[in-house]
């Protein structure tokens, strides 16, 4: 009897899935074994991927092809390895500083150009008659107003600089309304995020349940 490798992997997947599902009954050895196995396999796979797809393709091959520019990252990588030694860890600081500085620059630049400007432009586009020519202009304006109010109210909620005028009087009415509106929009956002997380979890459960049932059905047949 010839056993297909796909069947073997199907059985292994089925068993591991049951082990993970056993956590519904509480923490047990099966769940721990499955978790440990996942972590170990992932770490080993990560190492293999780093060696074959990073070191060989981006370091060894260019060096063998005579690329002297590759010596620079090689030198910096060597300095980073010195971080392991307490005495020589200072030598790795320049490379670490380069990494942190470049990463921060890329992140900040992307945030400003991609998110800040992009979102402002997107909020204004609701009130652009040319951009809204394809749809109902009134509907777009209403949608834009909701966007604008939601944005301002959320910002007002996180603005903690509003102070009470006098003792017992509380905030001004406009600030109070903005804060309340901000709370509403934040609650809606968090509810949507929670619904998305719940939906994702339910989908994963359905996918695994379908896999188990399908596997059992295929085995039975």
């Amino acid at each position, binding site marked *: 009897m010839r056993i297909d490798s796909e069947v073997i992997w199907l059985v292994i997947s089925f068993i591991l899935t049951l082990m993970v599902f056993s956590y519904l009954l509480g*923490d047990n050895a099966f769940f721990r074994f499955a978790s440990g196995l996942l972590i170990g396999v992932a770490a080993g796979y990560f190492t293999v*991927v780093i060696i074959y797809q*990073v070191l060989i393709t981006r370091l060894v091959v260019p060096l063998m092809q005579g690329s002297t520019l590759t010596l620079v990252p090689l030198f910096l990588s060597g300095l980073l390895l010195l971080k392991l030694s307490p005495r020589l860890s200072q030598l790795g600081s320049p490379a670490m500083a380069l990494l942190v500085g470049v990463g921060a620059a890329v992140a900040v630049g992307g945030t400003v150009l*991609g*998110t800040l400007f992009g979102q402002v432009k997107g909020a204004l586009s609701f009130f652009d008659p040319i951009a809204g020519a394809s749809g109902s202009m009134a509907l777009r304006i209403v949608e834009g107003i909701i966007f604008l109010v939601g944005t301002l109210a959320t910002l007002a909620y996180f603005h903690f600089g509003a102070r009470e005028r006098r003792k017992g009087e509380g905030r001004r009415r406009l600030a109070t309304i903005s804060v309340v509106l901000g709370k509403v929009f934040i609650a809606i956002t968090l509810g949507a995020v929670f619904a*998305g997380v*719940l939906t994702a979890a339910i989908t*994963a459960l359905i*996918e695994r349940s379908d896999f188990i049932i399908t596997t059992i059905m295929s085995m039975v047949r």
Partner: protein
Amino acid sequence: MADIRCLICNRVNDSSAEHCWYCNTILPKPTGPLTQKEREKLANLKKKISGAPNPDPEPHGDAPQETPPESPAEEEVPDWLARIRRLKQAEDQGQPSGKPDWIEEEQPDWLAKLSQPAAEDTPNPHDAANRVAESKKPALDESLRIRNLPRETDEEQEFITNLLKPTPPIGEEDSANSSNGQLEPLQEDRVDDQSGQEFPAPEGPNDEDFLDVEDLLSDKENVRSDQETVQESESAVSVPTGKDLPFPLFVDNLPDWLSTEETETKQPQDTGDDEDDFAGEIPERKIEKGRLPAWLQSLRPGVTGSIEKISSETASIMEDHGVLAGIAGTLPGADLSGRVLKTGDFTQELRVSAAQQKNAELFQSLLQPTREPKAVSADQNTAAPSEKLLRLFITILILLAVITPILAPGISAIIPVLFPTEVVNTLGTVQTLPTEKPVLVSAHFEAGLAGELNWASQPVLKHLVTRGVPLALTSTNVVGFAILQDMVTQAISGDPAYAKDKKVMDLGYLPGGAIGMGALVNDPLGTLPFTTDLQPVREHPSLGSLNSLSDFGALIILTDNPEFARTWVEQVDGGEADLPLLAVVSAQAAPLLHPYFASGQINGYVAGMSGALYYEMLTMRAGSATARFSAYQLSLLLVAVLIFAGGVVSLILAAPRPAKKKEAG
């Protein structure tokens, strides 16, 4: 001008100073020129003392005034002075002379001039006293040595020195300029300022004839002899004592406390013996230590001897060894050669204060190894049995809601009739992609949500495969890279016409996170030069014309993390690349990704199982999402009901009870 020595701190101050620079005590003002009356009194006094006037007792051999003594007219002599003169003449006639022999022997010519009757000269009585003391110094020393009188203290001598130090009259500028320090060089070499002619010093006593004032006053016998002489003259002349005497010359300038002290010390003046009487005239007893205020006593230097005495003592000492050998005037150190020091008895017991003990305990606690963290066992379920049953019941309900639609295909789902814009736009974008350009698929997700992403991405990938669009796969995390290959393989499996080897390029793992993304946007070939088979990307048939990111037909992001999607959007939107950006994301990332779609930064996205269902419906290809959508709807409905019911129950249970409120109140 002569300096003024402070009565309190005994330090020298400038003559123009009114207060002592060191202790702020009011300084005695230099006495002005004596009045005619006072001069006459002093002249008579001198006459009574020795029968000869005294020269100017400048301490450093100052030249006497060359101006001839003015002889007052006979008619200006008061009655009392005339009476004194008459008595003097009677004494002279009756007694040859009251002066001792040594006075005659040592009396110089200038002194003989001054020994004329008082009508001829009106010298300063202060000077008279000094000169008498100088002239009588050897004999007085000898006589007092014989008497063996008790010596006064150094402090008293210092005080007397300060008091009897002659001060030049303010009105007599010429004589003042020729006194003290300014006169000394002139005495040695007197040159007329106008003619430059050297002229001899005026006749008068030599330096040897005068005693140094300090020497004179440092010796008690000299002063005492003066006192006796003056006392005799007072008794003879009946000159009123006290305020009429030239001393103290600075009564008005004395502080209040010292003035008061003066009046008090005058009481025993009348009843005491001769010495006390003289002491009443010279107020050396007026500033006794015990009478001074406490604050002044504390300010006074504790040195019993004067600086001059110390310096005179040290000047005679010459070092005979050490680095100062051969140098005189050094301060001698204490002779410790014969001094035996014993160390104190120190016990070996360690004395620790309470604060030190506390710090030591704190330090010890810091040095102790930290407690090993206890492994938190998941078996430690502290929930009540009823709660366990509730959890189990809810779990069974959800499993039934999931499994029942799968096992019973007859349970149909409610199919939506409206399609979200993002899915429609995604479909339209994929549908219009050019088939010659590859689509870059970038994955970044964890294994836990691989099933959801697999279901969500399959419609899109199948659509691309159906259209024959080449695919370039990459991943910014290792797990995503592994699963992405399986997803593509699964999508291709349904279309055997799609040549995987030619149209699918596995570019491998893209390290660096946001930096790697930015590098890929700017330089795709430099960032991903090789495929996982170590083949150059440029040699691949589908990527032969690849130079920038715009050469890709589109960028499709597969992720369960909204941050990853946002980073891709930022890098692509901020770069120069111009290509459609699509996303296949988990349902949990959809709310945070939608603003980027609303702003037009993302052309479209498919989120979760519902998005896959919409895409399958639009492409009219039923897939896993369509098959399991009933289970999806039922389980979500059940979960929503459970959440609502749990909220209501929690609201009821958490409501405050009126009875408890009353008790609390």
